[in-house]
């Protein structure tokens, strides 16, 4: 426990330091990539924040101007798109960090360009992107995009890391009494999810679902924390990711629903017959739409809002420069964003906890053995005696 507490402390300090490092780049990052000049307006800061919230095709750490030329520091990711000539792959560095449809890459006989973090295919005759009044391209169309984007990269990386950490932890229990190394950090967290989230909410059948709950908990938590580093991950702030997680929960609690669960949805016992169809409609909407929707929107909105707040406070540096002077604005934005980043570390855990907790609650509702005709002795919710830790891991 001591080691775990110490490691968590060290981790928080590290994450905090990372966000501090990102300040060094921010002022330059705010520069508009097209004009190469300094950013001083609120609009440009807003654009920068919105750009960060979206997924992107490369890691962009910072930019600077040298000899009147924009230099970008970051690393590219592979672009994999399904064009009208079939599968096309290349590295995103060929776009030269352009995001306004100015650089046109010719690959596999098609013209491709990147516009607001999306890859477009230009018409064969076009030599540049034309825009209509709402700034939508008129001579380019969207593509099926299977690229390894920043978020995909984050998901893959965390998936591999978790596989490594937890398979190692599981192997250690076969030979040792207690885990060694990083396993000591993970064990109390695993036990916490099992004993505080899975057992009380699901009941005696908790073992079947603990694996999913642990996976979701660590996946969301680690990716939330990764979002606080200057690499600009915003994985859990992508609707696609949170929707996918919510659909997993939906499938699990619908598939494991027992007789009582369906009875309480479709033909609620103990209420007048005329009201039962009305209740069935409400219950069906609640089970299939509202529950997963609230899960996915909560995570997405919390994480996105957190990112926007942190970025806005960093943006104070640029916006308030005229009023406070560069040093004053920098100190103000540093202090404010430091504290909000610390709160975000808490939110990162809280959102992972809430998602896991509600998933467990929903699963618990669908597997609970409830007998309404008899007295409520709650035997279905009884938790068996705490088993040996080893038993659950092997």
């Amino acid at each position, binding site marked *: 426990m001591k080691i775990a507490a110490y490691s968590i402390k060290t981790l928080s300090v590290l994450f905090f330091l990372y966000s501090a490092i990102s300040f060094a780049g921010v002022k330059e990052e705010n520069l508009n990539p097209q004009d190469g000049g300094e950013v001083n307006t609120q609009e440009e800061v807003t654009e920068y924040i919105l750009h960060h919230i979206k997924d992107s095709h490369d890691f962009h750490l910072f930019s600077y101007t040298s000899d009147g030329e924009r230099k970008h520091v970051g690393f590219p990711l592979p672009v994999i798109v399904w064009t009208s000539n079939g599968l096309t792959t290349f590295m995103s560095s060929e776009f030269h960090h352009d995001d306004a449809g100015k650089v046109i890459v010719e690959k596999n006989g098609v013209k491709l360009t990147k516009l607001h973090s999306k890859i477009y295919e230009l018409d064969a005759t076009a030599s540049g992107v034309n825009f209509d009044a709402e700034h939508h391209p008129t001579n380019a169309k969207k593509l099926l995009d299977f690229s390894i984007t920043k978020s995909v990269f984050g998901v893959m990386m965390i998936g591999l890391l978790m596989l490594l950490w937890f398979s190692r932890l599981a192997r250690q229990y076969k030979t040792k009494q207690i885990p060694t190394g990083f396993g000591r950090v993970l064990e109390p967290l695993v036990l916490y999810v099992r004993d*505080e989230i899975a057992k*009380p909410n699901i009941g005696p059948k908790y073992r079947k679902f603990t694996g999913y709950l642990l996976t979701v908990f660590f996946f969301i938590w680690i990716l939330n924390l990764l979002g606080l580093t200057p690499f600009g991950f915003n994985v859990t702030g992508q609707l696609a990711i949170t929707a996918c997680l919510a659909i997993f929960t939906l499938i699990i609690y619908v598939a494991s629903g027992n007789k009582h669960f369906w009875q309480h949805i479709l033909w609620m016992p103990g209420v007048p017959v005329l009201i039962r169809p009305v209740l069935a409609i409400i219950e069906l909407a609640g089970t299939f739409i509202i529950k997963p*929707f*609230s*899960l996915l*929107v*909560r995570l997405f*909105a*919390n994480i996105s809002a957190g990112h926007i707040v942190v970025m806005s406070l960093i943006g104070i540096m640029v916006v308030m420069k005229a009023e406070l002077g560069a040093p004053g604005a920098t100190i103000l934005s540093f202090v404010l964003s430091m504290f909000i980043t610390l709160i975000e570390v808490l939110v990162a855990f*809280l959102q992972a*906890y*809430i998602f896991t*907790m*509600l998933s467990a*609650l929903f699963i618990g509702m669908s597997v609970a053995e409830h007998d309404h005709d008899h007295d409520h002795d709650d035997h279905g919710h009884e938790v068996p005696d705490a088993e040996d830790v080893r038993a659950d891991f092997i």
Partner: protein
Amino acid sequence: MEEMVTYVPNLVGAGLIVIGAGIGLGKIGGAAMEGIARQPEATGKIQTAMIIIAALLEGLAFGALFLGK
């Protein structure tokens, strides 16, 4: 100016949502505080229930903000 006016209903709606969510969260927090003060030994259970209700409320508020955007 016209552009600004079209934003007004959204902003007022967002404000109303936040007021409603604030009242709800305040009631939850207040009740939990009272409960903990009366029965400090039930702190853990009360906190868990409080967080769940707060999360459900928050989901509702975020859903409304998200749909109203």
